[in-house]
């Protein structure tokens, strides 16, 4: 049984304001943004699932609904067999130690008035009944593990570098020994030189503690290194999901092909898939019927206006496209 199983997750945001009101008069129903529109995936214990897609495709909303920063409209989220969406707040609080998250912006996600020690100690204070000295020891151990010396423990976030701040965020997420950590673009705000070191650290922590990650990113090189499976999201749905090696070797969905074709290759003679999409990602308020990529896809045919089937084209490789 997978550690985490998400089925048909849907998140909608109501629109407000004058325009929304006018649309309500026209259409008879208040307009909603369907940020996540039926997403399903599973994460096996000790593995990493990558969730990729361009900005605004709903990948961060998936992450935020896992840790209940947004309420899903429908669907099921199971962690270790426990259904999370129906838990009340108290029951969910008891799950939180095993389900943590690292945010994108290492500076904004640290309270500027808490020292490193207090920030990392906080989850222990909230979820364990360790004595003060034991908490201190555990905090030191976690800081050590993410590569921060004890001399940094009394510092405040503004006294740290970007890389050190993200290590503090990782330490805070790891303090309670979680099973699943949601990583929402944890390296995109860092310098390229620091990025690699944080990625190596995350991978090392995963293998040492048997952690599972949901790794959200649009940096495909990082995804390729860190994940065992990849799900590609477009406009609120997963369009392709496969084992990482398989996906990078045989991308099947036109959107995945376009994503991979956009990655620069450091070899001027390399043969490249000259696959380019036209236009911009449409608004998640007006989602086209049938295939959502239809208007931008160079391969689009009349059949693409029909509801899209999800097919398994190789073991574990699922694609939502009429043409494969």
């Amino acid at each position: 049984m997978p550690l985490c199983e998400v089925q048909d997750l849907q998140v909608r945001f109501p629109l407000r304001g004058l325009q929304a009101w006018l649309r309500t008069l026209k259409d008879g129903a208040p307009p909603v943004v369907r940020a996540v529109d039926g997403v399903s995936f599973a994460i096996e214990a000790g593995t990493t699932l990558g969730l990729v897609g361009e900005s605004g495709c709903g990948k961060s909303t998936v992450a935020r609904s896992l840790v209940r920063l947004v309420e899903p409209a429908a669907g099921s989220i199971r962690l270790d067999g426990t259904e999370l969406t129906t838990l009340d707040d108290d029951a969910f609080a008891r799950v939180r130690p095993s389900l943590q998250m690292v945010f994108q912006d290492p500076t904004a996600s640290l309270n500027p008035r808490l020292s490193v020690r207090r920030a990392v100690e906080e989850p222990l204070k909230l979820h364990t009944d360790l004595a003060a000295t034991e908490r201190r020891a555990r905090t030191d151990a976690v800081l050590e593990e993410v590569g921060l010396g004890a001399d940094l423990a009394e510092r405040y976030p503004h006294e740290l570098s970007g890389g050190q701040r993200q290590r503090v965020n990782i330490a805070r997420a790891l303090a309670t020994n979680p099973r699943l950590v949601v990583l929402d673009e944890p390296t995109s705000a860092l310098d390229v030189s620091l990025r690699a070191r944080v990625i190596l650290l995350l991978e090392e922590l995963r293998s040492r503690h048997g952690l599972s990650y949901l790794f959200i990113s649009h940096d495909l090189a990082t995804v390729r290194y860190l994940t065992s499976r990849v799900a590609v999201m477009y406009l609120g749905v997963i369009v392709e999901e496969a084992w990482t090696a398989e996906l990078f070797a045989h991308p099947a969905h036109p959107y995945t092909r376009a994503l991979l074709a956009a990655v620069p290759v450091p070899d001027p003679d390399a043969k490249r898939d000259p696959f380019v999409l036209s236009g911009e990602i449409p608004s998640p308020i007006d989602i086209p019927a049938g295939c959502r990529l239809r208007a931008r896809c160079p391969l689009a045919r009349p059949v693409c206006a029909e509801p899209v089937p999800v097919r398994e084209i190789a073991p574990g490789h699922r694609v939502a496209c009429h043409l494969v």
Partner: protein
Amino acid sequence: MADIARPPTSSSASLPASLRLIGLRLRRNWPSATALAIIVLMILAAVFAAWIAPYDADATSAEAALQAPSLHHWLGTDVYGRDLLSRIIFAARVDLAVAFGATALALAIGATIGAISGLHLGWVDLIIMRCVDSVMAFPAFILAMAITAALGNTVTNVLLAIAVTQVPIYLRLVRGEILRIREMEYADAARVVGNPPWRIVFVHLLPNCLPPIIVQATLAMGYALLTMAALSFIGLGIRPPQSEWGSMTAEGAQYIVTGEWWLFLFPGFAIVLMVLSFNLVGDGLRDFLDPRMRGVR
């Protein structure tokens, strides 16, 4: 600005270094430092008035009436022969107590309701903000006059009146700051870590709105003092024989034409000095607490 470029090693939390930095900043902003010293001196004088004041504030003496400033009576005497310096020192007690008390009360009420308003957007916020608008639509001083006129002019009522006129300022300030900070990623991070709502508010949100509130409170202290003196001046504040700067200025004003200039000048000067000092300290604090100056804290 040169300080910002300083590497973070300078803030390695060694006490003498940070003390030296504070000293440096105080010297650079000498008007605020002087103002702070004046306020501290005035508070000390108020607390130890019984030891510092050369005479009893209420001791009358017929032969010492209306004396100009001299070596015996540094700031002169009033029509009852009371020593003006002693009265000004004793008046600092009630003036400063009401200014601090009104500010603290307004801050406590304003911050609490402001936080509630910022956290519960929707109809709760709507009702609170419309109430605030209606209070603010009233000229603050007229409102304070109305309250003391209706409730009677005791020290408590003056304090209450000033506090009521200042609540909206803190309320709006805290609400705005909470609205800004609740959307910060560290507020989300606090939720993910499992903080209960009260801890998110008191540990993660409110402490981060402190700097602008501290600045506002300091500036408002001068305003509270001025309101109180003005209320007393028109007879709606603290009543004689209780010595108070505003009422003393009003009493002294009667003697301008007869030439006893010291009677209105010195209490008035005390008001000006304190209001100016609070404003200068507020300005200094604003620079001091500027987030961009954090690195040299």
